[in-house]
């Protein structure tokens, strides 16, 4: 595949692949806000800053962000079952305990976030340290398990031996650096969200810089762990998305420099550049998934046929109709709510 994902693929495969990448991008933004925000909250808890404005903002918004992240996560989960049914199901079965553990971890994580919101800065010091750390553990388990699941879904060579040995943990070398890359990306994402909600420009820039540095280090580590066959996939279209990722990252780094050294907030520069970064990550993820089937002609053919069959199923116009209605309804409601809020005494 020489064209960037999803171009160059048969139409049905490109269609579902693009839908997966787009919906995954939406989910990823909020998932990263939750993971990065919880990590930041844990550090602020350790530093004993109960009245810190960033801590208050995070406590206030993280339960909502988690609710949205979970809701937005349903769509990519649906399209993934069409795009890579066999890989997704098989990895889910092989790592079933950890896969299923995501659910209680997220439920516990949500109630811990809500508890922190309710307690606010009234919580005892030890709780202010302990609660965010426990929450962070719950979300780290979730994020790590998804990284593990994703890599395992493509590592078909280990499936049979893993099953035979009843091994519940997949220890592929790519999993940890991949998760660290994802975790590092969450820091600039949450920094951007906090920047839009508060006036803590310099601190946000600091967190974003740490995240960008983490992304570079973990990306280098990830490359180092990849076998030559996987590295070979990093060409053509995937290389184009890598360049887009690098360009987005460079622009964002420049934007954060303006924020840090000139105290100028540049959402117009930062938001689009960061969206390019997140979208490129999602597109690369899918492009590499397709490339992993390059040497498996039969599996690839089977997948393409499955996409074509799925594409013939009815219902798409109804989805589009309701999507448009939803957008109009929510836009109208948001305007109405915003207007009333601006007139209310608490405005």
């Amino acid at each position, binding site marked *: 595949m020489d064209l960037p994902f999803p171009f160059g693929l048969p139409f049905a495969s490109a269609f579902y692949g693009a839908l997966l990448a787009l919906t995954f991008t939406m989910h990823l933004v909020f998932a990263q806000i939750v993971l990065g925000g919880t990590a930041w909250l844990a550090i602020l808890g350790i530093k004993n800053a109960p009245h810190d404005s960033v801590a208050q903002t995070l406590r206030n918004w993280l339960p909502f962000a988690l609710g949205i992240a979970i809701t937005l996560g349903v*769509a990519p989960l649906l399209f993934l079952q069409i795009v890579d049914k066999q890989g997704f199901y098989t990895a889910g079965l092989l790592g079933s305990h950890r896969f299923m553990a995501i659910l209680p971890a997220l439920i516990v994580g949500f109630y811990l976030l809500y508890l922190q919101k309710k307690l606010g800065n009234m919580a005892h010091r030890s709780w202010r340290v302990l609660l965010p750390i426990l929450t962070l553990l719950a979300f780290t388990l979730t994020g790590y398990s998804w990284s593990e699941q994703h890599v395992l879904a493509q590592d078909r060579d280990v499936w049979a031996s893993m099953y035979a040995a009843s091994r519940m943990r997949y220890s592929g070398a790519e999993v940890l650096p991949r998760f660290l890359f994802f975790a590092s990306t969450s820091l600039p994402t949450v920094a951007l969200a906090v920047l839009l909600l508060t006036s803590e420009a310099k601190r946000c820039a600091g967190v974003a810089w740490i995240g960008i540095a983490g992304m570079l280090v973990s990306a280098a580590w990830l490359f180092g762990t990849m076998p030559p066959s996987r590295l070979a996939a990093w060409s053509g279209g995937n290389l184009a998305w890598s360049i887009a990722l690098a360009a987005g990252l460079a622009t964002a780094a420049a934007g954060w420099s303006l924020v840090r050294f000139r105290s100028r907030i540049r959402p117009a520069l930062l938001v689009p550049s960061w969206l390019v970064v997140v979208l490129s990550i999602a597109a690369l993820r899918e492009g590499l998934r397709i490339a992993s089937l390059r040497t498996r002609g039969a599996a690839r053919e089977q997948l393409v046929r499955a996409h074509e069959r799925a594409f013939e*199923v009815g219902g*798409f116009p*109804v*989805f589009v109709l309701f999507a448009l209605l939803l957008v109009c309804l929510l836009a109208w409601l948001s305007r109405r709510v915003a207007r009333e809020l601006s007139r209310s005494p608490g405005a």
Partner: protein
Amino acid sequence: MQDFPYYPVLDFGPAMKGMVIGGIGVFHVFVAQFAIGGGWLLCLLQWRSWKRGDALARRFLDSYFRVLVLISFVVGALTGVGMWLTSIQVSARTIGMMVDEFHWIWATEWLFFLAEVIAGYTFYRYASRLTDSTRFLLLLVYSLAAWGSLFWINGILSWQLTPGGEHGVGSVWRGFFNPSFWPSLVYRSFVSLTLGGLAALAVVQAMQGITREERGHLARTCSLVLVPMTVMPLVGIWYVSVLPEDSRAWITGGSALMTMAFGIAVAASSLLGLYVVFGVLWKRLNVSFATAMLLLGLAFGASGAGELVREGVRKPYTIRDLLYANSLTQDDVERFRVLGSVRDDPWPLREPAPTASLQTGHRVFRLQCSVCHTLNGANGVDHLVETWRPDQMRMNLASLQHTKSFMPPFAGNATELEALVQFLLWRRSGEPGEWTDTTTREDLDKNHRWLVEATTAPRSLADQSTPKQGGGR
């Protein structure tokens, strides 16, 4: 390599796989339906607060909404995702086929879910600063979206039981508006209102700082959503009337478990309905917190039994006429009768067996039986066949669908059938380290004859005539 999707098969020890999905399923349905009914109740309360100036209704609304959001948004949403994940663990092919057929319906349901969450969170966060009309609008969007989710998912779930036509291209709407769609939708909508109302009664009793009269006033308001419960018997009859004849036979004596579960669902619903009609609505009894929780417990029991019936009456299918409970299609059965079912199975065995035949038998068990049976735990085959003589075992397994009509036909050739018999006999002997296979040519011929006699056609209680002839070997 055939097109058949072999997935790794999990072993849940002594627990049946159905227990895992059933546990999460019942909990999810209960929470999700509570969220739907609760939403409509909130609309009613907001309407009264807005149009009649009922300050108490507004105060209660805010307390109740917190309970609704805290329970339903996260636990409801995650157990919904959990249903997908659990379904993968139990039968990946079933959920895969449902996604293939209905992914745009599911995607549309997701839009409604998104609207529900956004409207709900907006209300949760800003309601105190909004006018009555906007508050009502937000709650209306929330409730319509929540009920809309039920509308869409109901089409998919009822399709499993009554697919309503041939499968294939363009069949999505015929499948969606299948024969049990409307009764199931009405039934679930009324159950939702009942759960929302009963939970509200519990919250009313738990509220602090209100007088007995105010509590009574609120309880009567909340009871209004329980009114549809009075026509539940009629809806139940409607629902049962559209079930396929053999499914109806399961709940009217054909299967002891299904009949019992159906009886529990009917009895619990009737008791609940009688109490609601005579106690709450007519006599206006004061429902204490303990009584409200007891009624909710009864509703949970009715829901659980109802879901068990819904899952159980599909047997031997998981998607009627399309996919058997063991994830094999009729085409697979016919092909495997000739080629064998585990010849291309790429998944190794986790536990060794001394001979190749025993290993084949174990693989056959894993592929065809393990979704509903354990080896020696719940519904364990060791116990089920422990008194069968070898020939009896051969004949019963060869004609599974005639031995028990809720079983799918055996999907293998005479050699695989013999391997399964040998595997079960080996287990009965205590799994010795050495095993001499005593199979004779005559045994294989008998297996073959019995397989041919049984045919590959499914058999149901509604079809008690002579077995159909034809089909694969």
